[in-house]
């Protein structure tokens, strides 16, 4: 009898323990999320790309013509960025001449630029300064150097001791991401363009004043990731 009771008790005890011996149940599901933060640099010219200077009076030759806000640029960027400017050629291209005397070679540097945004670069347009022609800008295949004219940032990454402008939009950062470029040409009489950092005689022609005529020049604004 005792043996029977003992066996029954053991069975009851182990059975009770067994009913409480189970692991915590769980289940899991997963999402695998990919986030692609693209590097975006947008440069927008909000004014007409064509800027005209017509010198038709003695006063205009003497005093020059200044076009304030001739060009307005807006930058939207998701990367640290630099903005530099240069002429696509060393000199203006003559389309038509109105005279037989004077120098048809007009260096790009007769055009002066001034930017509304201050640049820390050693070569800049913080005040009216001659635009650098292609050779003098030292831009090669679109890549600037320390001698290039910067409107924002400078040659050299921030990590390397240089400077750059922060990512952002023009709408939210008008003082740093919106540029108003003033342009000036001051021929003088004779039209020697005394403010130019390069003389008209630079290409070997001894004529010191410009030939009357119709000329054009392409100005390039280049927005790049902090270089």
């Amino acid at each position, binding site marked *: 009898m005792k*043996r*029977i009771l003992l*066996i*029954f008790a053991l*069975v*009851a005890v*182990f*059975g*009770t323990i*067994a*009913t409480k011996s*189970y692991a*915590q*149940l*769980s*289940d*899991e*599901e*997963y*999402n*695998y*999320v*990919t*986030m*692609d*933060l*693209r*590097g*975006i640099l*947008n440069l927008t010219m909000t004014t007409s790309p064509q800027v005209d200077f017509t010198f038709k009076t003695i006063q205009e030759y003497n005093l020059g013509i200044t076009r304030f806000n001739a060009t307005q640029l807006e930058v*939207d*960027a*998701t*990367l*640290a960025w630099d903005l530099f400017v240069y002429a696509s050629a060393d000199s203006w291209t003559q389309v038509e001449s109105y005279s037989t005397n004077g120098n048809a070679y007009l260096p790009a540097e007769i055009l002066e630029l001034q930017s509304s945004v201050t640049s820390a670069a050693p070569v800049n347009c913080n005040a009216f300064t001659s635009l650098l022609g292609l050779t003098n800008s030292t831009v090669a295949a679109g890549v600037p150097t320390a001698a290039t004219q910067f409107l924002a940032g400078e040659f050299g*990454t*921030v*990590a390397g001791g240089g400077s*750059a402008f*922060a*990512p*952002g*939009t023009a709408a939210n950062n008008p003082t740093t991401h919106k540029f108003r470029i003033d342009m000036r040409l001051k021929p003088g009489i004779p039209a020697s363009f005394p403010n130019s950092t390069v003389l008209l005689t630079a290409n070997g022609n001894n004529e010191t004043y410009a030939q009357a005529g119709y000329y054009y020049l392409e100005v390039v604004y280049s927005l790049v*990731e*902090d270089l």
Partner: protein
Amino acid sequence: MRIKTIVLIGLIFVFGTLGLRAQSVSFALTTSPNITFDFNTIQKYETGITIMNACTLNIEATGTQWDLYVGATTTNMGFWDVTSTYGSSGSLPTIGIMKLQFRNAAATSQMSGFFSLQDRSTPSYIIGSAGAPDAAISCPNVGTNTAGNYLTNPSCYKFNVDLRIVPGFNLRPGLYTIRIDYVLIQDL
């Protein structure tokens, strides 16, 4: 003979008791587990990307209360895994920029609105809590954690999950990944 009978009765008692207490928790993610956020315009950087119903969780809990929590699993805790970067400036994104919202018809989620994702080691509890067992809460109250399933009570046992990221302009451009873990666990 009597001994054998008694032992047999005892065994019947044991296994019979086990059979009366069957429990299970399971759920299914009924949408694709792979999700991509592609920030390819300035506007998306500014306003973000929201994916509604990015995934749906269907819960089945039998014979037990349950907890539901969510957390991120990454190599570097607190930060997205880096596949590649497109630049050198900007900070690496934290997992907190990923925001989630759990919705169902009865609004039983304890987390209202969008909340930031946290590491799995300190997860966000949609239902229940780290302490156990929680007080039993029945459908359709907030925090419903009693046994049930999405087929009979979808308003409390089916969750639609929305995802949102608003990166801004301080992050380093690049390609990043993260795994979001949804865990359904028995509340013990």
